[in-house]
């Protein structure tokens, strides 16, 4: 038995190490996504954002983390203690477990499961319980309302998101995350160009699934104080926050893998575009140069020193990106550059989330449900039928792929137009009958 345990340990040692690295690094990364969010928000509102802790607020995440950890941890007297304790842990567990199936680069993945996408879908659907049970256990009306809203919202949007995933899966013909990317490398097209409607539905649905504005009804500050996490404080509250940001990164990773070509660089199959291989080191070198340029402008030697450290970190990242360009290191290049492109795409997706948050006002709850049930779900079903038809026309009837996809896309768009018209008509009759 000990021998078998040893055998298993030696077989899966890298998976264990990868998992530990993710658990150790991710909270820090989430902290920096929060900083990014605050900076982007400040930029869009013509402010500076966090500027005090470290140069340009670069150490703000560390300060926030320390503050949250030493804050008083309050459990309401009439709360259900066990479930109050369990709920945030469940949320974080669901958020982090999904990373097991996400391929960051050709060699950078913990487990290549042949049901990878469904596994992520299943695990993230378990995250609902963190919110629902936490809201119930707090024994407060605001929390309960937030939890009820959240469960209704997530169950409704899960259908549309699942259908959007199916439209991509029909084309790739596999559930393994790695094979989906390899299919896109092989066919030469990112699936977003083949199934654009599915991508848009996934984008809208994933905003709702992660409870982000404009669909952040479960934690609507103007109505529910903070929704399901009203009674939470200190470290438990931080766990909920961590879960929210890890969910954002997970949906971004799924969208990147399924629709945006995963770790592939743009125009991966075209040799005329090979100069794009120089982009990753040049981008990082540019960031390093900017950090160095900002060093003299910082006030005080400590700020200058921290800025120099950040410039050094950027340079340390630049070196491997440049070194793997050398001939004979093609396998390493695929891995390292793959990770760069993957993270860049995920960050782009997260940026769209932030952009939407600061652009659109919050929906009313009945409007949210209407968007889900009256528009997204019917459209996603039509889209799945359309993509399936296109696949059959191409593979069985031998149509030109561009023609078959174009025809079904036009039909899907007509259906979408009809849905919008029908919705407008319904609203007008409702207004008339109300008057």
């Amino acid at each position, binding site marked *: 038995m000990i021998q078998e345990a040893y055998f298993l340990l030696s077989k899966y040692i890298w998976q264990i190490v990868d998992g530990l690295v993710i658990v150790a690094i991710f909270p820090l990364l989430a902290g920096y996504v929060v900083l990014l969010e605050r900076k982007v928000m400040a930029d869009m509102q013509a402010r500076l954002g966090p500027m005090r802790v470290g140069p340009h607020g670069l150490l703000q995440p560390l300060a926030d983390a320390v503050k949250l950890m030493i804050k008083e941890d309050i459990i309401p007297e009439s709360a259900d203690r066990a479930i109050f304790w369990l709920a945030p842990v469940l949320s974080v567990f669901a958020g982090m477990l999904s990373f097991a199936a996400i391929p960051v680069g050709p060699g950078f993945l913990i487990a290549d499961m042949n049901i990878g996408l*469904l596994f992520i*879908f*299943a695990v993230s659907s378990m995250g609902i319980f963190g919110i*629902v049970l936490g809201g119930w256990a707090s024994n407060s009306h605001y929390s309960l309302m937030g*939890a*009820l809203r959240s469960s209704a919202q997530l169950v409704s949007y899960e259908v549309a998101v699942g259908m959007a995933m199916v439209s991509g899966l029909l084309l790739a013909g596999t559930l393994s995350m790695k094979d989906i990317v390899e299919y896109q490398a092989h066919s030469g097209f990112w699936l977003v160009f083949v199934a654009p409607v599915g991508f848009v539905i996934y984008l809208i649905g994933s905003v709702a699934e992660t409870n982000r504005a404009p669909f952040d009804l479960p934690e609507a500050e103007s109505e529910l104080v903070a929704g399901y996490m009203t009674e939470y404080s200190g470290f438990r509250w931080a766990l909920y926050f961590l879960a929210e940001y890890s969910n954002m990164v997970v949906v971004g990773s799924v969208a990147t893998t399924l629709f945006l070509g995963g770790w592939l660089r743009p125009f991966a199959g075209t040799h005329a575009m090979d100069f794009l291989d120089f982009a990753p080191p040049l981008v990082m070198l540019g960031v390093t140069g900017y950090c160095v340029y900002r060093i003299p402008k910082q006030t005080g030697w400590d700020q200058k020193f921290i800025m120099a450290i950040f410039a050094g970190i950027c340079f340390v990242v630049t070196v491997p990106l440049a070194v793997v360009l050398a001939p004979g290191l093609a396998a390493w290049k695929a891995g390292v550059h793959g990770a760069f492109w993957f993270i860049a795409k995920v960050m782009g997706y997260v940026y769209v989330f932030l952009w939407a948050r600061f652009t659109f006002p919050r929906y009313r709850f009945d409007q949210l449900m209407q968007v889900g049930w009256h528009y997204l779900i019917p459209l996603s079903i039509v889209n799945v039928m359309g993509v399936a038809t296109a696949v059959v026309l191409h593979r069985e009837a031998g149509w030109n792929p561009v023609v078959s996809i174009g025809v079904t896309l036009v039909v899907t768009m007509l259906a979408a137009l009809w849905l919008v018209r029908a919705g407008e008509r319904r609203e007008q009759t409702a207004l008339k009958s109300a008057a």
Partner: protein
Amino acid sequence: MTNEILFYFFAGLAVLGGVLVVTMRNAVHSAVFLITTLLATAGLYLTLNAEFLFVVQIILYVGGIMVLFVFVIMLVNLDVALHQVQFNRQTWVAGLLSFALLAELLAAVALARSYGEENWLFAAPHVPTVTAEGNTEQIGRLLFQNYVIPFEIASILLLVALVGAVVMGKKRI
């Protein structure tokens, strides 16, 4: 060996969760243990190399049905339910019946063991080997080719039940 350890772990968890579901007084606690039981069952599917069933069990039962369960439980006034007298006055009858069922099952297992491998009905269960074609594709082929008519009839039945529920629940459509 590893498979056996995993089997006993998940099976024990499922039984423990099941017992706690019926003994907890608080409905939300029962729901949490029901989730545990369902997850343990999903784990059992995984030890049988049925990865598609594992995922579908979690998506449907844990992510779908249990969320609705918890949703409904939260809408019910629990304080009233806690002070009501529970329907557990027939403990002895229930215990006796449970032991009868247990004895029956044990007898069936013992009988199956004594018949040996050659009889297909009582053949000792074995883990199916992993094939090149995944579990998902096999189930899809079975559902949509061999058993397409029963599958469609079952979906129509579910649709009828849904429509019926809406008609009964809503006064004016």
